[in-house]
């Protein structure tokens, strides 16, 4: 069981990392679609964790992801409307969507401590890959100044979420053994 769980997480981590081709130079409409999808994927995982986890701190973290990523998407959507940019689906956003659905399907099969650890492990991998994407692909390629500024503004939230998830991972590890 432990092997299966570990393998799943590893596969998801690889999928998350490969979702961001470093050589690609996305356009602003593509960046908009990537940002909105990335946030939505984490909102969906948060909703599942909030309803399924029994641990108060994991539930609180999940609620935080729902609220914060909804906040980011609200700002992103408002900006996109203001700039008359139409988010354009692309390989990266589709891959993210797919990865998010796979994550939810895998999480649904787990319960209790195994669920909590898999959810938090994936949150760490997800936030790491988003930060990397922001730094290497999204921020450098954003053409519109306001879109670029928004990406810069959301970055610290992803860093704080990653730190928070790592703290939870450490405390779950202790509780689990």
């Amino acid at each position, binding site marked *: 069981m432990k092997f299966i769980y570990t393998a799943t997480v590893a596969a998801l981590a690889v999928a998350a990392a490969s979702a961001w081709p470093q050589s690609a130079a996305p356009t602003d409409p593509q960046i908009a679609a990537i940002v909105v999808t990335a946030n939505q994927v984490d909102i969906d995982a948060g909703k599942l964790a909030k309803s399924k986890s029994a641990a108060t701190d994991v539930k609180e973290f999940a609620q*935080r992801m729902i609220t*914060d990523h*909804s*906040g*980011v998407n609200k700002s992103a959507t408002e900006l996109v409307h203001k700039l008359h940019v139409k988010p354009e689906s692309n390989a990266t956003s589709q891959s993210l969507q797919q990865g998010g659905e796979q994550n939810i399907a895998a999480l649904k099969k787990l319960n209790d401590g195994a669920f909590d650890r898999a959810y938090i492990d994936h949150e760490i991998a997800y936030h790491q890959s988003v930060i990397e994407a922001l730094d290497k692909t999204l921020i450098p390629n954003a053409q519109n100044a306001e879109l670029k500024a928004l990406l810069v*503004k959301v970055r610290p939230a992803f*860093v*704080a979420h990653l*730190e928070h998830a790592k703290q939870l991972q450490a405390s779950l590890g202790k509780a689990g053994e």
Partner: protein
Amino acid sequence: MISFSRTGGWQLMVRVCAMALVGLLLTSGAVPATPNANAAPKTHVVTIENMRFSPDALTVQRGDRVVWINKDLFAHTATAVGKAFDSHNIEPNASWTYVARNPGEYDYVCALHPTMKARLTVL
């Protein structure tokens, strides 16, 4: 000549009265109800942006106001570790004002984002 002198005397009277009145006001103000009554309370601003409190260490005088302004994209709180003060949720573009009445050193966090930490010192 005489009329000029009279006018000068009248002006002097007015001036003396005015000075006496100012003196009276100053005297009444010089008897403070509290040690800080002479110094007008100041207002300090802590900006919450990019998942940080800025400044993250602030020292104020007792009676001063501290205003936390949230410029981030989601809600934050300013919550003292010992719950001496708690803003509860400050929504984006909203603010919360606290009058620092009790001296002490207060470590505070965002209750929603535990990685956000800062300190308020009240002298």
